[in-house]
């Protein structure tokens, strides 16, 4: 079938955005990413009106839902282009709308800078100052937590998340980062360090979460973010009554 890819283009952060349409041949099992690749590899590259166009800039890597690079807004929802197939889309009048994730600084076209997620991880010091402790109960969730692609879909859909404002210490850091806080905390023995991480996470993370849980619905890996976050809460409450055992190991 013939589809129209309607792409939001922008040459740079300061440039004016505009929409450009591309027409391509695709089947129900084509991924959105494969359409973008096909358009970009055509020579000459022309838009639906036949005018010469610049290659569309977007990120992609593994093409199998393993690296998180190709997250974008597809018909308004944050999804990975590699794992979104035409059969899953409404295709109203044969049109697919693509736009960059809106909550991260734009670099060009569909390419955004998701470095703010990493900045939050660094600001909250979500790492170990101690050899990792293995808590068998937490292992399955720690595994899920480390599987996170840091693709940014959860932050994009979240009504409480505004990128860049977290640096002021007043706003919400989002599920991807809370998830990292949980994993680091789960790998500390009960004690001061673990408590610090959890407090950090209450201040920048779960304290601001309004439980819409929209993150759960868009996570490409369907990670149990609600459960991971509630494990974090549970650990925090417990930590208020714990004796410091970090010296005993």
């Amino acid at each position: 079938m013939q589809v129209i890819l309607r792409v939001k283009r922008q040459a740079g952060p300061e440039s004016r955005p505009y929409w450009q349409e591309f027409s391509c041949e695709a089947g129900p099992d084509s991924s959105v990413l494969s359409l973008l690749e096909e358009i970009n590899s055509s020579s000459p590259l022309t838009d639906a009106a036949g005018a010469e166009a610049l290659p569309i800039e977007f990120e992609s890597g593994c093409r199998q839902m393993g690296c998180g690079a190709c997250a974008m807004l597809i018909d308004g929802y944050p999804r990975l282009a590699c794992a979104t197939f035409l059969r899953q889309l409404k295709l109203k009048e044969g049109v697919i709308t693509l736009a960059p994730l809106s909550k991260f600084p734009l670099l060009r076209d569909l390419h955004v800078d998701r470095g703010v997620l990493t900045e939050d991880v660094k600001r909250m010091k979500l790492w170990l100052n101690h050899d990792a402790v293995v808590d068998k109960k937490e292992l399955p969730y720690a595994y899920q937590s480390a599987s996170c692609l840091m693709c940014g879909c959860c932050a994009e859909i979240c009504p409480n998340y505004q990128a860049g404002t977290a640096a002021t210490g007043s706003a919400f850091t989002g599920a991807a980062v809370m998830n990292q806080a949980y994993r680091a905390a789960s790998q500390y023995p009960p004690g001061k360090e673990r408590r610090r991480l959890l407090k950090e996470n209450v201040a920048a993370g779960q304290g601001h979460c309004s439980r819409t849980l929209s993150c759960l619905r868009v996570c490409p890996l369907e990670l149990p973010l609600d459960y991971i976050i509630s494990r974090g809460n549970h650990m925090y409450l417990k930590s208020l009554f714990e004796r410091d055992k970090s010296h005993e190991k």
Partner: protein
Amino acid sequence: MYDILIVGNGLAGLSAAITCAEAKARVLLVSSNQPERSQSVMAEGGINAALDQKGEDDSPAQHLADTLRAGCDLADAQAVAGLTTAAPEIIRWADRLGTVFSRDEEGRVDQRCFGGQKKKRTAYANAGIGRQLMAALSRQCRKLESEGRIEVREDLRLVSAALGDRGCCGGVFRRVGGGEPEGIAAEGLILCCGGPGGLFGNNTGSLLSDGAAAAALFSQGAAMADLEMIQYHPTTAAGPGKRLLISEAARGEGGRLFTYKEGKPWYFMEEWFPEGGNLMPRDVVSRSIYKVVRELGLGVEGRDEVLLDISFLPKEVLDTRLAEICRNCRTFLGVDPAREPIPVWPGVHYFMGGFYVGADHACSIPRLWAAGECACQYHGANRLGGNSTLGAIYGGRVAAESALGASPLYSAAEKEALLEREARRQSELAAAFSGRLRPPRLRQELQQVMREGMAIFRSEEQLAAALGRLYSLEEEARGLAGGAEAADSLTLTGQMRLARAMLLSALARRESRGAHQRSDFPARDDAGFRCVTVAQYGADGNINVGFRPIGADPCK
């Protein structure tokens, strides 16, 4: 001004950076993206180490012997001994950093069977070891970065190295998204830039592993070794525009390969190899599948496919230890492995060859080191599953250790002059393109040529034909586009040069060994070819291919 500049933030790059930081070196880690995107996150199966905790009397010496045997005696035994001896400590280190390994009943790091090894030696994390290792190592790197012990740039692509008469003094980079080449000075450069999957396309790896950095350094004279050794992973499936890896873990957990013969399932691996069965080394399994389909004509419904059955495994194994495999099959193939077998066929997966390095990971050019998949080390003619993640972490560490403490070769002014000269040269090379031909189209043709020329079985005729087509593509490349696409055009001409070196290396090795199978020279020839194929690009524009003894010093 840095002591050490590291290019690439996969497992090898992160391992090198952490090693440098701990030694208090001034280190800059450069890549074009965040570590979450690197190809290392795609590693599925596991990481090998003789922890000897399964009561099987395992040892690093046996790990060494298995690695050498699977590599068809082409790997440097001394270097591999270093790898297998360090392996148990590397697992403990990764564990301390918080890698979430799968655990046994006693809470110890669990290990499973993998191809080419009789002992349970592969530590794993369900079917996502790469993601778990990378989560732990990148977290450690970010900690060191926030302490000011590592500097990080995630927006630069390597264009070339700055080389003077005494060796390398830094790199020239372009910012992601465009801009002119800019130089960064250092006493040494460690390349951890991954395998050149982009020369083939339709492979299992990431698009980020495009081989551009390796091609650039090859064009500057860095020697490459064993480029003909390309691993076809036996079980890959036809995904959208790529081969989808079905990890060896599927067979490690008991999965069986079969096809239909006279209407009944025929478990050819088990019949042909009663002892190793489905877990023979990858080159053997790939050739067997090829034989079943192409020689016996027993592909499923006449297609290039056999079947991999894991449906009979306990649900719990499918849902945990093979979870990622099942998810990918459902999403990308529309196949539910719990109910039906997975159609598979060998696909380009890993490059055993790469930068010609010694046991200390030093390249043929002074002050240049290489580690991970971009380097030719440890795997010989065929890599064992579970040895790539290990080789990357260990290699990064060894490269960093040998790069540490390098005394200045050039004055600061000399470095600046060399960097400026190189940046200008690269700028001029790119500016020379002014045609209309867009690089992606020509790149697809290059990939087609390479897939056909460097198939599982090769012959003089087939390789020469591929070389002929490549020459005409190189002619066509003169018409590549300039302007916004000039940098990509230049990258593509480098990739073509590296591709030519691969074909020439395959032509020169007139024997069959491991991943390199010549239908016109079907026997292994130890007297003639138990040595390293070395390809080097000369100033005259020709590629010279010769042979060097295993374990020789690339600098001499």
